[in-house]
């Protein structure tokens, strides 16, 4: 058992640090430091910087332009990226649809879609959940009916994150409703510009527009946009879900966040708000620190088993549950530090162009909205209740 980095890995870490020092787009970095919401273009600029470095396809196979990094390298990259406050890589193209395409797609589809995904030339979004298919994802009702060389798609997808920016959407659609509901689901790629596709925003309680409903009103989709075989979509989506657990705990991000929380406490002390002398708060902070260390090592164990060639098992559900709880506990700490200044709701303070004096300390402006928004992390991607079912059934055999 050994978790020390080798000399090669240390050299790699230097390389990553150099990248963030010199090639992390300055405008994006500045916004990240001030907590200002990023625009679509900011995300593209940042992801293209990664692409130019050859680092966009973190998990991709080398043959399709991936990094071919080891588990340790991915861990190092994630840690450095979080410390540098880089934006999250928007997962829908690079981390979600691409693996399905390069694993199950035809050669034609690989050539057609992968290069633009890698270069972030095309913005993807996810069409899984429906108003009545949330935790019970297999009951998707969006219909795709074969008509010559096309499918006619009708139905509604919901909670589509950043769908307002998207050029393409990958969907689970029902092509057959005769058998078990897990059968008859297909994986279909749809151009958002096709007639009959419309997007309506859903505003969340933090006042932002992040998620959407996507409606399909008799949308004609070329049949060659179907990935793999008709009726196998559920299998593809599930394989993807168990394979894409790395990073789901967002440990690196939480570690960086904890460090910045400690800075907030020091700054608060300088203003005369002495949280260090609040034993209740400090006990909570330190307990969270312990929990985060445990979570980090759980993630490392999963990573290490992946690097030795084993697929991560259902125990990776631990990462989703504990990782989301960690994010939410850290939000609560920030809310606590913000104190009375958690109350003002002044979104201008974290919107592009704000150069006034903040009301209270700047970090406090986003404390409550972030706490509100992050209630989603124990809901999306399979609620934590569903994750516990998976642990009970698949890990513990109950």
């Amino acid at each position, binding site marked *: 058992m050994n978790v020390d980095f080798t000399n090669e890995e240390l050299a790699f870490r230097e390389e990553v640090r150099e990248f963030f020092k010199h090639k992390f787009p300055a405008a994006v970095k500045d916004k990240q430091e001030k907590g200002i919401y990023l625009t679509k273009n900011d995300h593209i600029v940042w992801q293209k910087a990664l692409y130019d470095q050859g680092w966009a396809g973190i998990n991709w196979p080398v043959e399709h332009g991936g990094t071919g990094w080891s588990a340790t390298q991915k861990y190092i990259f994630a840690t450095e990226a979080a410390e540098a406050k880089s934006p999250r890589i928007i997962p829908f193209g690079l981390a979600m649809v691409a693996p399905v395409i390069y694993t199950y797609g035809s050669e034609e589809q690989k050539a057609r879609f992968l290069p633009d995904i890698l270069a972030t030339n095309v913005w993807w979004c996810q069409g899984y959940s429906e*108003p*009545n298919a949330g935790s019970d994802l297999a009951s998707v009702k969006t219909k795709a009916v074969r008509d010559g060389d096309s499918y006619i798609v*009708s*139905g*509604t997808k*919901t909670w589509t994150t950043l769908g307002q920016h998207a050029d393409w959407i990958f969907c689970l659609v029902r092509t057959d409703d005769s058998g078990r509901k897990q059968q008859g689901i297909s994986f279909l790629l749809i151009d958002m510009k096709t007639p009959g596709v*419309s997007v*309506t925003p*859903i505003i969340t309680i933090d006042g932002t527009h992040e998620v959407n*409903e996507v*409606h399909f*009103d008799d949308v004609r989709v070329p049949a060659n946009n179907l990935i793999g075989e008709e009726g196998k979509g559920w299998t593809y989506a599930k394989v993807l879900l168990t394979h894409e657990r790395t990073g789901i705990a967002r440990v690196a991000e939480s570690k960086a966040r904890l460090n910045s929380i400690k800075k907030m406490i020091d700054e608060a002390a300088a203003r005369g708000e002495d949280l260090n002398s609040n034993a209740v708060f400090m006990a909570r902070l330190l307990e969270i620190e312990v929990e985060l260390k445990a979570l980090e090592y759980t993630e490392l164990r999963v990573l290490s088993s992946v690097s030795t060639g084993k697929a991560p098992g259902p125990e990776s559900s631990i990462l989703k549950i504990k990782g989301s709880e960690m994010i939410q506990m850290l939000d609560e700490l920030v809310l606590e530090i913000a104190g009375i200044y958690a109350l003002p709701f002044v979104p201008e303070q974290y919107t592009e162009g704000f150069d006034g004096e903040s009301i209270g300390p700047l970090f406090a402006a986003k404390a409550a909205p972030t706490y509100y928004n992050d209630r989603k992390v124990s809901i999306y991607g399979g609620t934590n209740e569903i994750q516990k079912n998976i642990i009970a059934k698949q890990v513990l055999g109950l």
Partner: protein
Amino acid sequence: MKVLVAVKRVIDYNIKVRVKSDQSGVDLTNVKMAMNPFCEIAVEEAVRLKEKGVADEVIVVSIGPKVAQEQIRTAMALGADRGILVETDEPLESLAIAKLLAKVVEVEQPDLVILGKQSIDADNNQTGQMLGTLAGMSQGTFASEINVGENCVEVTREIDGGLQTLSLNLPAIITTDLRLNEPRYASLPNIMKAKRKPLDVKTPADFGVNVISGLKTLLVESPQERSAGVLVGSVGELVEKLKNEAKVI
């Protein structure tokens, strides 16, 4: 002019009614009770008549258990001047109530009696009409507008497909419909004043009325459970569902 208003204590209209496990009736244990909404409209109308200077006194009467005093106090907090409770723990049918009210009318000699058109617990819609007969007074039921004139009252009634306006000679009986008025909220000073207003307690025996019922409730059943609804995300989706799933449009 003297106005008599009858009010009934019923389950609060916001409470989801639960049937007792033996199906003998509705479970009233720890359930919030309130004034029947139509009676509230009747009280409001009487109080407005008083505020307009048309009525000099508003008397509120209720028939039921001791706790029905709460509803009388509420009516007095809304502006009624005094109260009468005819106290009985017997379950009463409409005719017994009408007989008791007729006795109260005999004693009080009001010019106008206002009642709710029906109570939301039993939905009988009978008491006002029966009282009209027993007291020998003309009646205007389902009133949506009332105008009191010299020795008469004009009542606009809501009837199927339209409105009908009647003129009744006083004394008269009016039963209220939903659109007659919007009852006020009881103000705190009036709530406190209501405590000091007189409330007479009588019994059916005082009026020589036998309230023993010839009716027996055999079975009370809940309405069939509504199957689970779904939340639709948008108008578009609703239209889609109405078209394709419910097939109603």
